[in-house]
């Protein structure tokens, strides 16, 4: 590998973290930040204990509780003794191994992928891992960030490194501009629809093009977050002035002279002119409309002006079979216009769309309206700070006046590990990331949409085109 050839940002970050390279073995990469939560860490800590190993760098580690926590009154005992135990085990492990924990009554508690960026802890050029597939979120800052399993969690705790087999690179370029009412969520759903749920296997994606340049940090996080739904473990956006402006002044970002030095380094993190990717994908921003998923994979989506597609129109034999299974599970008929699908529940939140900008966008649609009598709707802020900010802006009042429930921060109904679940057969407009069978509750039916589309559906009781509002 020569050092003067043009490189992608992905290759640059990889090489800067190379601890050891050896023929026939995976590269050993240094990990700058390890985020930990209650669900995927207990067995890793237990294994450290059994092997008499320590956490090598507790100060490059941060833990919080998010998956299991109730989103109602937390002064009450956790209604689920197994959840309570898992949270207690994390507390004990953090204490024993010296890992900082933002616990349930800490204002900074929240979804792991929301809290790190909002404190400026997620920065360009870092390697970041967490035992959670949506770690790709942090790629929005130009970091190489990916989800890992519990064995790898243990590996990082013990060594602060991770062996990584070679990856391929993918350029996903979205050119032009987005139309009114079209959001980052719609962009990423369109990308996944194009590449398929397995299109990104073995790749790290760089999101390129004007649409991402014009996007806010919150929007970039939404896009990078769902990278895994297209099969790629990590996706990133090269840092720019938008990134620096977001980070400046946040409590864990560099301060004073360090800030200027850091920005100078961050500016080097771009893909060089002439660097090549293994795979190229291109979309036009103007072609993307607000999206709604109709099936049980995140690639099964259509524009809001469309109808549920016919399985026979799916490309391959496999896509047809999968579409038929999905329609049966979703209890939908091919050919039905998306706007005629009625919903029972609305979930606004998650690491995909639980940030302040998402709540503002949804509140702007909700303001002055009432949730349909047939719909039960809830807002779950992504963190304690998001909740505090929203309340300072009066967004909680907008939501509550309209009939939404206003909850405490956590993963909540994105995966339903806590009491927030769909009942069998219930249909939900959800701002989360997965519409898998039973994801939000056994027998529940999930349609993935943007915060604006979820808010509009809550009021109408069925899907509507946000572009028709106002």
């Amino acid at each position, binding site marked *: 590998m020569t050092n003067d050839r043009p490189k992608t940002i992905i290759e640059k970050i990889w090489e800067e973290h190379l601890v050891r390279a050896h023929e026939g073995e995976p590269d050993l990469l240094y990990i*700058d930040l390890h985020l930990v939560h209650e669900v*995927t860490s207990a067995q890793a800590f237990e294994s450290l204990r059994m092997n008499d190993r320590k956490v090598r760098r507790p*100060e490059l580690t941060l833990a919080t509780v998010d998956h299991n926590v109730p989103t109602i009154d937390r002064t009450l005992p956790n209604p689920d003794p197994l959840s309570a135990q898992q949270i207690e085990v994390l507390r004990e492990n953090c204490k024993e191994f010296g890992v900082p924990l933002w616990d349930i009554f*800490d204002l900074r508690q929240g979804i792991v992928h929301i809290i790190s960026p909002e404190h400026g802890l997620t*920065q360009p050029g870092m390697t970041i891992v967490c035992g959670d597939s949506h770690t790709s979120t942090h790629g929005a800052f130009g970091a190489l960030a990916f989800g890992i*399993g519990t064995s790898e969690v243990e590996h990082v705790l013990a060594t602060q490194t991770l062996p990584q087999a070679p990856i391929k690179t993918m350029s996903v370029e979205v050119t032009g501009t987005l139309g009114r009412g079209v959001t980052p969520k719609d962009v990423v759903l369109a990308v996944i629809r194009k590449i398929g749920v397995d299109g990104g296997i073995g790749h790290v994606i760089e999101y390129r093009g004007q649409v991402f340049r014009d996007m806010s940090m919150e929007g970039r996080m939404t896009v990078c977050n769902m990278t895994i739904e297209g*099969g790629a473990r990590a996706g990133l956006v090269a840092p720019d002035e938008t990134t620096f402006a977001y980070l400046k002044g946040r409590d*864990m970002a*560099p301060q004073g002279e360090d800030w200027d030095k850091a920005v100078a380094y961050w500016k080097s993190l771009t893909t060089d002119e002439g660097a090549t990717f293994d795979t190229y994908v291109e979309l036009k921003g103007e072609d993307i409309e607000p999206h709604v998923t109709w099936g049980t994979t995140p690639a099964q989506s259509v524009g809001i002006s469309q109808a549920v597609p016919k399985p026979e129109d799916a490309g391959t034999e496999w896509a047809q079979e999968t579409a038929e299974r999905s329609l049966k599970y979703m209890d939908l008929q091919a050919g039905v216009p998306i706007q005629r699908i009625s919903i029972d529940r609305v979930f606004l939140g998650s690491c995909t769309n639980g940030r302040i900008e998402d709540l503002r966008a949804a509140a702007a649609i909700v303001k002055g309206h009432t949730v349909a009598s047939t719909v039960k709707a809830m807002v779950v802020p992504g963190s304690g700070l998001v909740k505090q900010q929203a309340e300072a802006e009066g967004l909680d009042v907008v939501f509550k006046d309209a009939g939404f429930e206003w909850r405490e921060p956590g993963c909540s109904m994105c995966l339903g590990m806590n009491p927030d679940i769909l009942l069998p057969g219930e249909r939900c407009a959800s701002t989360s990331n997965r519409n898998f069978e039973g994801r939000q509750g*056994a027998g529940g039916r999930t349609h993935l949409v943007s915060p604006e589309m979820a808010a509009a559906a809550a009021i109408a009781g069925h899907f509507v085109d946000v572009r028709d509002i106002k």
Partner: protein
Amino acid sequence: MRQISTVTGQAIPLNRADVDTDQIIPKQFLKRIERSGFGEFAFFDWRKDPDFITNDPRYKGAPIMLAQQNFGCGSSREHAVWAIEDMGVTAIIAPSFGDIFRTNCSKVGLVTVELPHDDVNYLMSRMEELPSTQIVVDVASQTVSVAGTDWKRQFSIDPFVKYRLLNGLDDVGLTMQHTDLIGEFESHRSALKPNTSNAFANTVKTP
């Protein structure tokens, strides 16, 4: 990690694509803090259908699973691998796997074999028609064959994963042999990188 050289026996023909880890092990079972005992919850919702393939007594105890593309996509939960392992499965054959799931398998000690669609389809039909068929996955020679026939296919595998499987080596232990290199890297690591030392202090209580 356990040592694996060959896996011989029947295969469960799970003829579905994009099987996500939420299906393999639903969320309600992720609250357990143990590493074993997940097998009885594997495919929990799908198994409620008496016709679901893992309920078919003809494949009981099969050490191999056959599936279609993108097997194990979605959530990073290693519990999915523990559940399949606990069912008694040691090798999975599919046209492709979710990246995180495949890595998790390599850490736990399950062999993931990628074969082209046509070959997977052949094995799938064969197992459906002749459930007693014995398939042999040989890690050393990187081959899959059908016992008693000439059918044999080569598969590729990461050379280091192969080495670890054949020798039963856990890679935390292997990496710890390079502690000096890690220390050296840390000695010239940029001081500008953030740390969480101040995350302990100033615990902020919710109002």
